[in-house]
């Protein structure tokens, strides 16, 4: 959606394509933090 609204975001934000935000679980987000990510953005 960031693409459709032509929002600019820094290159340090790496997208992971999902089919629906309902699919995002806390364990996935914690895995990302655990592997070294500073934060997780769940976008529409």
């Amino acid at each position, binding site marked *: 959606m960031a693409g459709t609204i032509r929002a600019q975001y820094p290159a340090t934000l790496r997208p992971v394509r999902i089919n629906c935000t*309902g699919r995002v679980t806390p364990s996935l987000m914690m895995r990302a933090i655990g*592997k070294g990510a500073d934060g997780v953005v769940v976008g529409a």
Partner: protein
Amino acid sequence: MLQSARTPGLNLYTYSEVEDVQGFVGNFTVKVRKRARYVNNDCNGCGACWEVCPAYGYNEFNEGLDSRKAIYSSFAQAVPSLAQIDMDRCIKCELCKAACELDAIDFDQKDEIIEINVGSIAVATGWDEFEPPTGYLGYNKYPNVITQLKLERILAPNGPTLGHLVRPSDGKEPKKILFIQCVGSRDLNMNAYCSSGVCCMISIKNSKLIKQHSPDADITVAYMDMRAAGKDYEEYFTLSRKEGIKYIRTNVSRIKEDPKTHNLKIVMQNTLSSGGLKELEFDMVVLSTAMVPAKGVESIQKLLKLELSQDGFFKEFHARLNPIDTKIPGIVLSGASQGPKSIVESIAHGRAAASSLARLMGKDKYRILLIRAAVEDKDKCAKCGLCELNCPYNAITINDDGAEVNEILCRGCGTCLANCPSEAITLRYYREPHYEKQIDAILMEI
């Protein structure tokens, strides 16, 4: 209506309510309660019964302007042309039964539950007139403050006054009339939306009708905006101004009644001129109230498990790209059930609904994507029911041996998976290891 009743293969269930809906697209089972009319199909609508009936009731069709008998026909053009008995008003004198030459009256008639199988459903529940709170702008308090529907019945040639314009308090013909637009609409305290310019056009139409009836009538329309968007609408509006109908841009906040004459006094200011406040007196005030969803729409919503939009009307699949379908395959919205609209738009919308269902039912197959939730290991399922509770499409049911996903209702959103504490349910093609590997790969560089 008559044409639909005569169409072969079209079953019309009138005086009925939908009580239960089960199933999914292609396989709906619907229970319809055909309420007892206490009159059987031998009736031909001749009216001999209601001629002799001694009991009266509120005539809903004429907006309470006159009464009808306990045994009555909804209105002259009702389809089918049958009488019905309002048991709350009936005094069981049975004079109607004696008067009926066709022996059509049956006091022992009971409600009938009919079960039908259908492949798809169109929701065409329509709209109702918003009822302002009693006392708001004099509604339900001052007899000469009426709504548009009441005015329509007064002006109708087959209405209670045979089309003569009379005002409720004394039956005299009102000369100075005010229409107030946007009553209960475009109002954060009542309904925030605009009824899509329908009431603007209704006021213009009724003003012109009154002018036709009495050319010396002095008609004013108090508006916020005159929304005349549609084919020939602006020209119609210009024509009405040429006929001498006055349009004043103002918000009417309070109406006072003269208790002797029942005339209405309003202090208003034309915001498009520098004239300041003026007190004006009118013989009759007509309120253009908002279009709201039909009464009783909540029961249909629960039965079909549909969503409602912010404005209370049924929620369409997409407000811009698909205002016809709903999120449930096989159920479409037709006409004003989806939102306020004019006759022109209702017809277009209704035909779009029919076309959507024809496309669906015209094929012998129904295609679905394979991206669906699935319980692959039933031993893991603790039958906690969180998936069933959270599924936005009501696609999951908990059986004795675990959760079961209806692949046709499922839309592959993954909410069930996110909620499952046992990791028993998964989403095909979008499983957990799929994402775990992606996250690992991205963060490997760090």
